[in-house]
């Protein structure tokens, strides 16, 4: 049985798209995606909190799907598209979800916000015209300690109209 190409003992080359750009990096098998994003790519918008994929502050989009970067290996990005919060705005132009969150007070301390906004983007990409109930059910995945969630839902409803 040939092990060539099947074994990675210390280093794995990953080729992926990061926020729309081609990216080539080297990761160790045990490296977590969140550490790769924050420490190696230097993108601190993705936060760490519960570390057990419950709270959702570490949410990033992998091939458009919301995943918990705290509980995923970095090598999983190979051949995929990774979107972090830094990749939403285009130069000075905010994404509609971001400007809605600002206008409607969808955040207070802001710690959960990157994950919340990315989760909202995943929702709206899957379901461009969700009902209030559908928004609540989907966004239930992420925790916010400040807002009481109401304004998060209102922000997303506003963003629906703009997208």
């Amino acid at each position, binding site marked *: 049985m040939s092990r060539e190409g099947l074994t990675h003992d210390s280093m794995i080359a990953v080729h992926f798209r990061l926020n729309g750009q081609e990216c080539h990096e080297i990761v160790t098998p045990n490296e977590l995606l969140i550490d790769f994003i924050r420490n190696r790519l230097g993108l601190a918008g993705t936060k760490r909190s519960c570390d057990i*994929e419950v709270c959702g502050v570490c949410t990033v989009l992998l091939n458009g799907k919301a995943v918990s970067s705290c509980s995923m290996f970095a090598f999983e990005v190979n051949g995929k598209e990774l979107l972090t919060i830094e990749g939403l705005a285009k130069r000075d132009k905010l994404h509609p979800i971001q400007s809605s969150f600002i206008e409607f007070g969808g955040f207070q301390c802001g710690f959960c916000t990157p994950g919340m906004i990315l989760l909202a983007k995943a929702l709206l990409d899957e379901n461009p015209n969700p009902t209030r109930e559908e928004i609540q059910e989907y966004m239930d995945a*992420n925790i916010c300690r400040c807002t009481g969630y109401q304004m998060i839902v209102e922000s997303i409803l506003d963003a629906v109209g703009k997208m």
Partner: protein
Amino acid sequence: MISPFFLYQPDSLEEASSLLAQCGEDAKILAGGSELILLFKMSLSHAKYVIDIKRISQLGHLVFDDRNRVLRIGALVTHRTLENSEIVQKHFPLLAELERKVGNVRIRNVGTLAGNLCFADPHSDPSALLLAYESKVRVLSVRGERTVEISDFFVDYYETALGKDEILIEIEVPKLPENSSGIFLRFCPGERPIVTVAVLMRWEDGACDNGRLVLGCVGPKPIRAREVEESLKGKSVNEILARAEDAGGRAAALCDPLGDVWGSIEYKRQIVKTLVSRGITQLCQERA
């Protein structure tokens, strides 16, 4: 910080099972990783070798086998795929509804049903319903393939009948006969369910011909409440309605929950009693 490991990414079942046989107890299988990575992080598990099975195309299928009337769920199928699948929604609506409730959407995007079963967390959703459906799992090793009834698959807390060199490759869920109805209820104040109840009934001439009642999360493995099933057999809708609360009480006596932060033993028994009688009542009222 997770301990370093060798990563294998085989692209065939033969490679994967061969690797597993060679590496033995030092190896862990990786699909979604939504349980495994937590175990690694908490140092409750470690591996010198991780065998990532996500490149094995033979494991990605989700099909309704019309001839045998079973749903075949490959090991790599995620909860999210199951919840959104038209096939599952059409033929197994209860399963689709259950899958929507597992964890949260981020977990469902990467976590697999197969991985959920292999982890055998007593506080999980799918096990009770799959037992009620009398599902089977197919497992593979270098020694060959075998099929295991799900009732035999769950052994104890976090323990299954999966051998050290075996990989779970498919879950088979038989479709219920046409005149069947079912309900799945859960009590889940936090992240993981504290009590689940699955009730399936087949109706013949206004009477319950084949009832199945499974209690989940209230013992080391899901509990098939056969005594309660027997007491409902052959009874009419109204007779069962009259017995619903009694059935709930008897089901509660059968379960074996642990007292913890989510409730005392007595509290969990009360929840079982409530959900069972509620489930039976609702099925009968739909039928009446």
